[in-house]
């Protein structure tokens, strides 16, 4: 089997200026275009590589902060529960402030009364500072209308009662 070739010479394309004429194959020695392309590709590759490494480092720092938040919730409540939920959006996605919610007694996730803590600040000894919180009834999502017994400086903006 052979690859089909496309004749160019003698066709209607022959009337076009030389630089505009189509070719069946690249002219050998057209190295300048290739050099420019390769340079741009290398630069693009470098940008992607740097962006990827930066993002892995950024995400790792975020994860370390989340680990500290989970530890903080456990140490604050005295419950060593593992089914905790973290919201990074509620207090601003790029604010570094998180809300961690978990049951106040053993049970399926969200099946019991939940305690949510608003946590931010630097990580000290693997934990961060609790700046307030609220309770949620069993089986409720963390919505403003369901929050009660709010406490601390974090609660005024996010609590209704």
């Amino acid at each position, binding site marked *: *089997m*052979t*690859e*089909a070739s*496309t004749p*160019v010479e003698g*066709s209607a*394309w022959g009337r076009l200026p030389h630089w505009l004429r*189509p*070719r*069946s*194959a*690249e*002219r050998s020695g057209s190295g300048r*275009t290739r050099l420019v*392309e*390769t340079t741009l*590709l290398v630069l693009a*590759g470098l*940008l*992607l*590589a*740097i*962006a*990827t*490494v*930066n*993002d*892995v480092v*950024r*995400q*790792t*720092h975020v*994860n*370390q902060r*989340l*680990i500290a938040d*989970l530890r903080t919730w456990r140490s604050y409540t005295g419950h060593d529960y*593992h089914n905790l939920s*973290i919201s990074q959006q509620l207090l601003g*996605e*790029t604010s570094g402030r998180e809300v961690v919610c978990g049951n106040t007694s053993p049970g399926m996730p969200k099946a019991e009364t939940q305690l949510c803590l608003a946590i931010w600040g630097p990580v000290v000894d693997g934990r961060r500072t609790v700046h307030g919180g609220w309770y949620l009834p069993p089986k409720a999502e963390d919505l403003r209308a369901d929050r009660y017994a709010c406490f601390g400086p974090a609660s005024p903006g996010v609590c209704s009662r």
Partner: protein
Amino acid sequence: MSVAAEGELGFARTRSEQWAPVLLALLALLLVAATAEIVLDGALDHSALIPKSPEIAGWLKGIGERLGYRVFLIALLTFTAAYAGLVALAGRAGVISKRSAIILIGALHVIVFAGPILLSTDVFSYIAYARMGVEHGLNPYVHGPIAIAHDPIYYYVGQDWKHVATAYGPLYTLLSYPLAPLGVKGALWGMKLEALLASVGTLALTWRCARTRGLDPVKALLIVGANPLYIIYGLGGAHNDLIMLLLMMAAVSLTLAGRDASAAAAVVAGALVKATVAVLLPFMIVSKRSLKPLLGAGAALALGALIGYAAFGIHGIDVVAALNRDAAFVSTDSFATEIAHLFGKPGVFPVDHTLLKLALVLIGLHLLWRTWRGYDWVAASGWTLLAVSVTSTWLLAWYILWPLPLAVVARDRRLLVATLLVQGLFVAHQVSPLLAPVQ
């Protein structure tokens, strides 16, 4: 070179040739072990990586442990490292036999086929759309799966897709319809089988195209068939991208055989599965500079549009609307998001979408010009597909598979290097849960 130096080099070559089969066996073993680990752990229960699914791999339960990020990422990195070694080894002609390559790729396919659905809920959306049309008389181009909330498949559809009408082409939707009456489990096996057969077909055509172009077919086969994203994400998730790739490679194969009209029709058929593959068409037409591909594409498009319209109405052929909708999505794995983070932005803004589209248009125009002046149209198509995935704000692992089969049969080796580099960066981007596991 002196005789002594030549002798030393020859000795070193002989010694490395002796070690090559041992190294090959070791790398193959790592690939199989990493795949088996993911499949066996995934078979136990759903997790953050394994979507909720009807029990189709129950007989594998009890061997592994529930698949978590740590084990998955170690297996994925092991697979990727072994694959890199294999690609390097395959670069030396004659080191890997055709038989060894087929056995290895066959083993990887069988393991993944026998296991659960990995890493994506997309296949449940495919089944939901099919059941909407066949079992409930609803148009999947008008309604999202929420319209069949009472159907057993609805429970398995991904949260983000419950309200979303299908974005796939009418040919794919019609292909999925015969699976709908088989029940959820039957349809799931049907989808897995479709993906398996599409993968086998893609690999066979890749082999054929490489051989036709005077390239090493074993190397081409291994680079595609043992690729971590191809096996774990593409085949593991039973993605319909594999069907699109099959039709794409059929088009390349037909072109190489001089059947330009059929090749263009195959591209259109591929685009009626998933629209992305349509980017091949302008390069094919510019390269061939004859009426045949235009006629082939035109006839296939007319037929496809007629069937699509008859089956689904105007929504079934409005591919542009679906593409525009999907182009607005943003995923954390996209390079656009990573670059936004690099420049201190929280994410991608509407202006970034516009800039990325502009960049894509410029790349496409440059490649069209290069193809007009004799550049390999297969390579140009591959570059465009790579550019589509890199500039997309909604990047998923199986999107970076699109240029791979073209890259291994293209005349420009840079495309393969760039594709593998982008894939490597994608894998590297997954590792943060390994460095700081949140639990």
